[in-house]
């Protein structure tokens, strides 16, 4: 809403915008353009000359195993996020009941979200340690030796081990978002449905779940962003290994730029990441619009 004094133009407004837009122009807009331009060049990060290579970096990118694996892993992270949402929703429904201590439970579950991701990653590295880590120790302790695994070394398992860390760290966030949404739904609606003879499951399926549609969509969008730009947890826990099994687009950018001084190729991967992200979000917006017509 724009107020009623709409006919009166305030030129002073630009002064108010100046600090924000200066930051924006220098550190957000300029970098986007810089990336785009750099992605068509070879540059080692130091020399004065940028060598024009056209689409070479993009061609190379589509042939790289690591980029394919990054995309696969992004989809696995997204699947993990959907699982996360499901668990969070069930927990939110549970904690929406008047249970003594539910606020304490919510606080505890929220803690992993507040702590730095790198601390979470190192902690889980310790837990997953196949020889001395507590996870395998417990499995062996209860006689489930066959379930003790090389959690981060097994190429098929490693990515899921990392997905689990993501679920654990992000659950508290999804939970409080669902909980807040649930609390904003009028309880009398649900009570009325119960009076009309609907079972608890039916109320959830046909009333609560659809009413939370907006929340689902917000969380899905955040999940897409998180999945495509995943970095610190796999970077710290496995460095993207073994043999690229847990790599991500951001890890590929980091490696190429800071280990190999391939700034141009890194920029190309960055541009690619951004394009994918924008396309996915537009796609999601599009699907949202379709649903509203229903």
């Amino acid at each position, binding site marked *: 809403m724009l107020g009623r004094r709409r006919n009166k133009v305030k030129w002073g407004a630009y002064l108010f915008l100046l600090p924000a837009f200066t930051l924006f122009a220098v550190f957000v807009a300029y970098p986007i353009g810089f990336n785009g331009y750099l992605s068509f060049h070879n540059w080692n990060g*130091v020399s004065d000359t940028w060598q024009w290579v056209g689409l070479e970096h993009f061609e190379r990118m589509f042939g790289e195993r690591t980029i394919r694996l990054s995309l696969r892993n992004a989809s696995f992270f997204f699947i993990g996020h959907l699982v996360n949402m499901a668990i969070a929703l069930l927990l939110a429904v549970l904690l929406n009941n008047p249970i003594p201590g539910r606020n304490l439970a919510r606080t505890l579950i929220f803690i992993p979200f507040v702590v730095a991701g790198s601390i979470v990653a190192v902690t889980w590295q310790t837990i997953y*340690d196949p020889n001395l880590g507590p996870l395998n120790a417990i499995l062996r302790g209860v006689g489930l030796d066959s379930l003790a695994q090389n959690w981060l070394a097994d190429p098929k398992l490693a990515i899921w081990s990392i997905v689990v860390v993501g679920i654990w760290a992000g659950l508290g966030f999804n939970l409080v978002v669902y909980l807040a949404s649930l609390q904003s739904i009028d309880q009398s609606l649900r009570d009325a449905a119960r009076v009309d003879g609907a079972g608890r499951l039916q109320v959830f399926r046909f009333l609560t779940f659809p009413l939370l549609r907006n929340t689902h969509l917000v969380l899905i969008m955040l999940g897409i962003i998180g999945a495509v730009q995943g970095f610190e947890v796999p970077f710290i826990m496995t460095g993207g290994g073994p043999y690229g099994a847990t790599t991500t687009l951001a890890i590929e950018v980091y*490696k190429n730029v800071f280990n190999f001084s391939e700034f141009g190729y890194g920029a190309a991967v960055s541009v690619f990441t951004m394009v994918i992200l924008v396309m996915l979000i537009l796609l999601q917006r599009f699907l949202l619009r379709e649903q509203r017509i229903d």
Partner: protein
Amino acid sequence: MTERSLWAPRLLIIVLFALGFAVAQDVTIEIVGWGSGQAVVYEEFMNQNPSIAVTEQMMPFGDLIVFLKTRFLAGEAPDIVQLQPGHLIEFRDNLLPLDDLIASDAELDLANFVQPALTITIVDGMLLGIPQHPIVSGMLWYNKDIFDELGLQVPTDYDELKAVAQACRDAGHLPLILNGGDAWNRLNVVEQLFAYFAPGKKAQAVAGEIPWTDPDLVAGMAFFETMVEDGVFQDGVMGADFGVMTAFSEGNGCIVVQGSWAKGGQLIGIRPEGTVGLTLPMPFPDVTDSGLAWMPALGTGHSFGINKDSPNIEAAWEVMKQIIRLGDPLANYPVLIPVYASGVDSPVMARANNMGQLEATTAFELAAWDAEGAFLNDAWGFAEVRDAIAEAASGVATGQVSAEVAMREVQRVAERVLGR
């Protein structure tokens, strides 16, 4: 020039020294490098030479090369740079050849250096750096207490190594510990396997003279998989992190893959409150029964060079001589290359806690430099190639790819990089 935050402390230090000596210092020598630095050396130098101030700026190695290149381009380079010898070639136009300085210096004699170490810092026939901290890789450390307890002998060939690993596993210890998550640690093993399976061929492949798909190199890579499958390393070796190294220092492992640089450090069992197990160096076993008892890879951890455009070359040379003389405060060798790591407190700890280990290690290192099969490990070439080999090892060890295919991938990367 780079950042305000560092100028303040730097200025403060200079001012403090100026006040402390009550003498105006005419010259400031700036040293840039990586690692923990060697403040002790420079403090002593400044005590003796009050007219020369020395400032030391340390950064992570990953940033060093770009940082130095930027500063050389800008004409604002430090007077002395600390580099890995493999990187000297990238700065050959910026560094001062040191041969004449040494030859004309009455205090120094080139013959007193460990000669093979010195050759590492020669580029295009010019001595561009003073090597410091010679290192031996292609060696292992074992926990002697555990070996004694289990009645084990130091393994010298692959069958013995396998047997020792099994005995350790049976006793509930980790066998041969490798931090597989760390590319350098993997490469330490791969380099030894290349040495045994394809003597001399790694250097040829780095130079682009032969392809990385050479059957002998492939065989070396394939043997890494064999070692993993035989259970020589601890389980889940490719998912390991530094925690497995800590496990060794906590007395939970039999053998660990680390070079001589680990001596006196936290890793090799020296902690503020003593040692868990006496840890001693051992040669990498002769995995091919080649008959060559030992093929240690030798190198120097770093080297110091002088900026040829420095306005204070004479003062910088005085500092360099101090580095040569005192670079390791604990060096008690009859050679002019200090040998001990100058980690924060490690040499002191090593001396205080475990003289036996220190002496054994010293003898071991000197033997390594004299070993018949010893070879100089200059570099892996470009960072991409090194990374590709480390990745190949990771893929082979986790059964994701055969050694042939993995080495083809290495060759593809090498060709792309060489063609750049």
